[in-house]
């Protein structure tokens, strides 16, 4: 395994449910994790809602007789990242702007100002805006 350390930042989300399905940005982080020395994820902008804990959205859509139940399940992916030990951070100002607070996110997600996180960029070999 490499010692390469990456901070992934996602500020654009919801890039296609039907065509993307499992192959979304969070899958990429889960998949590359094994190759990297360390990976952390920061969510900003509209992507903060990927970490909002809710149980209303069902990743299913129907087009007449065509039923798809393999749409991206973002909160499950965030929970999986947490379970696998990947630090997930979400931007507090952007959460607040959308009416959410620290109590609204998936347990284990850290809420902070991701601008202040920039002071820690030197800890990473790569900072990737995905």
């Amino acid at each position: 395994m490499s010692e390469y350390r990456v901070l992934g930042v996602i500020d654009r989300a919801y890039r296609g449910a039907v065509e993307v399905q499992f192959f979304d940005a969070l899958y990429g982080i889960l998949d590359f994790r094994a190759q990297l020395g360390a990976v952390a994820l920061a969510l900003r902008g509209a992507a903060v809602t990927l970490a909002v804990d809710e149980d209303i959205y069902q990743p299913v859509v129907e087009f007449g007789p065509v039923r798809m139940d393999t749409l991206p399940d973002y909160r499950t992916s965030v929970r999986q990242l947490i379970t696998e030990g990947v630090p997930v951070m979400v931007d507090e100002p952007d959460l607040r702007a959308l009416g959410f607070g620290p109590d609204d996110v998936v347990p284990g997600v850290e809420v902070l100002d991701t601008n202040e996180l920039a002071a820690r960029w030197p800890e990473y070999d790569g900072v990737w805006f995905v």
Partner: protein
Amino acid sequence: MTVEGDGRPVDDPSRYLLIESQGTWAGPNAGRFLDDARVLAEAGHEVRVFLVQDGVFAAAPGVPQLERLAKAGAEVWVDDFSAAQRALAARSLSPHVTVVGMDRAAELLMSESCRAVWH
């Protein structure tokens, strides 16, 4: 020796080239990235921001992030090709920016210890 905002020296200041390709007109994400640059500069790191593509629209006069970047000691470069393509003449841009060619960005990128982050 560079210093942090509270006067303590940064042990090992890094050199950063931050490339902003999105426009402040497209939403708040570009502005947040420019604020990342400010935080890095305020932490004592050597920061240059290279505005390319729609990122050059942030070089319009009066964009608040640019003044804060300049105050924090960061340099802001504007890609000459992108600016010309968007009819943005050097005289119409913020006084806090310098118009450069891609060769300058490439030279800095490949310099020792320089790290690049592309937004």
